[in-house]
């Protein structure tokens, strides 16, 4: 039912925006509408997001971490709560800072249909829209900076230092949630080559292979967070 809905609505995803700054809220709406997405609700706080998610059952909710009343992590908490109340709700969380801890908390609510990006990424419109579509179709998208943080924590991990330079690049992109196709495009190599690298990485890290992209991301992230 869900997948049927999704394939028919691929052209115009239904989006809820939760962002307290009016300027950004309007900007985001314009940007999404321009790309052919359908903004069904705009809210400015956590409870508003939960209510809108329950009422509209959107394909994706785009949520700012910091919202009233405390301007701390209300958005993150509301996003996690919405996912608890509306199963399979896809959420893209935007934040002024990328903190690995927030990403981890978000991923613990399930890796499918989850994104965590630096707010600045909105500036690269095509990439941002691609990320929104990715998350809405059940993918996992993690900001490169968060991935950097995770990887730099393992600078001295012997299994990671055993990776070749290319494998290291593939691992970074994999942790960001890119598919083999996207990785191949980004590194200017064939998908077959990427598959081989991925197999080597999983072998060197001692991880079990998985076909589904988001499960693969999860395996990599679990390893990096451990």
């Amino acid at each position, binding site marked *: 039912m869900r997948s049927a809905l999704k394939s028919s609505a691929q052209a115009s995803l239904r989006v809820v925006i939760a962002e307290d700054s009016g300027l950004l809220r309007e900007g985001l709406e314009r940007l999404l509408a321009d790309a052919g997405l359908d903004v069904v609700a705009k809210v400015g706080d956590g409870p508003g997001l939960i209510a809108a998610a329950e009422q509209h059952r959107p394909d994706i909710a785009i949520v700012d971490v*910091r919202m009233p009343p*405390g301007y*701390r*992590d*209300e958005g993150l908490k509301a996003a996690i709560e919405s996912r608890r109340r509306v199963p399979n709700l896809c959420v893209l969380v935007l934040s*002024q*800072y990328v*903190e*690995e*801890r*927030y990403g981890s908390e978000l991923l613990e609510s399930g890796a499918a249909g989850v994104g965590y990006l630096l707010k*600045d990424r909105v*500036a690269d419109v095509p990439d941002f829209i691609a990320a929104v579509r990715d998350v809405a179709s059940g993918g996992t998208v993690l900001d490169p900076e968060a991935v*950097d*943080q995770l990887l*730099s*924590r393992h*600078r*001295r991990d012997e299994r990671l230092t055993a990776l070749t330079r290319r494998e290291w690049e593939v691992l970074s992109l994999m942790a960001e949630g890119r598919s083999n196709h996207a990785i191949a495009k980004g590194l200017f190599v064939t998908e077959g080559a990427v598959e081989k690298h991925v197999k080597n990485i999983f072998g060197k890290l001692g991880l079990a292979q998985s076909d589904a992209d988001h499960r693969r991301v999860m395996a990599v992230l679990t390893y990096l967070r451990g």
Partner: protein
Amino acid sequence: MSEPMADSPHVKPSGAVGPARSSSPAGLGASAGFLLPNLLLGIFWFTALVTLILISGFLAIGWIVVMGVTLGVLSLIRKPKWHMLIGGLTLMIAPVMWLCVSGAQIERRRVAKFLGYRVPSPYQQLAQRTVLASAHTRAGDPAVWRDLAYLLLLLPVGAAEFAFVIGAFALPLVTIVLPMWLFVAFPEGIPLGQGVQIDTPLEALLIAIIALPVLALVGYLLVIGMSKAHVTLDQALLWPSKRARLAQRVEELTESRSRAVEATIAERRRIERDLHDGAQQRLISLAMGLGMAKEKMVTDPETAQELVEEAHGEVKRTLAEIRNLVRGIHPAVLSDRGLDAAIPALAVRCPVPVEVGVELDERLPEAAETTSYFMVAEALTNIAKHSGASEAQVFVRREHKPQNRLVIEVVDNGKGGAEPEDGTGLAGLADRLAALDGRLFIESPPGGPTRVQAELPLGTLKTTTRGTL
């Protein structure tokens, strides 16, 4: 852990805390070694001081008579200079003062060495270096008079202590000699009452065997108790008086308060400069570029597009810059998740690999969290910039005993030789910590390793300053 550090030559503690004592109490040997010489020292100081006081006293009387008459006669001619009389008297008691201070300092060192109590200097600071001014300050300093009282008391106290310590050691010996001596003194046996009588050597030996450990214990407790009693006397006379301690505390607080204010001002200046030199300039150039693009939109669309692209790149760089600046002012993750989330986030941004261990059972008062965070941030910045280290460790732990406090350690394997005066921000760190009664220890011998340790008492900090969610 901090006590041995404080004694090592490379450590600079800042912000002293009252009388401190080492972790282990003085044992039997140290106590006896401290108490036994007290009699001899007491005799020496008593003799020396009394002699000197008598000499000074006679001199003073002579001086008063001679100067009194002279000045009295002179006053017929012109206005008398009575302060010369007082000044001379002060000079005459100066040797007594000097002897008191020297003797008391020797005693303080002995207490520190044998009993493990560090005694801070109780004296008022000597403002001027002239003999007369120094003598005047000393004479007006109650600490010196308390020194005198202590040194004179040392004779009777030392005599009593000597007797008790010898007695304490002699008691067990008595039980060994007792059985032999018994039958010389009491050929009939010793009646214990109710018809029981010690009348065989075996019985006497048995009693002696039972009595030996009991008497040894009594002797031990006596010596330890004596040394404790002596420390009480020290506290009363050799340590800074409560009034002096309070005065010193007020001085420390005044100083740390003004430094805290200065630090705030310096911080504001830094933020202003960062915004002015960075983001503001970038935004101006951005506005300029976009203005030009607007002009050329119709006439030269190609250049206009180039300009817009440049502006797009520029605005992204500005965003990153502002983000870093804002994070440096106060990181959101610190207020949201506390130190155990914020310190690992700091560590991964450090170019030197950092091992992190944060052991905290609960969130801490905001002032403690913020100060600790910036202490670690500054230390890691120093490591990255100056140390040449290839690895570092950060440990944060909460201690409940003996004091409710936070201990932060940052260690690196770099080249060492870090000085708070180098302008590496370590001095500012010490100021921030001192404002919360914390202390900073820096151990950085040339050649490394460098160890920066901060201790932050948590008992007095309020937990209510953090906003609610």
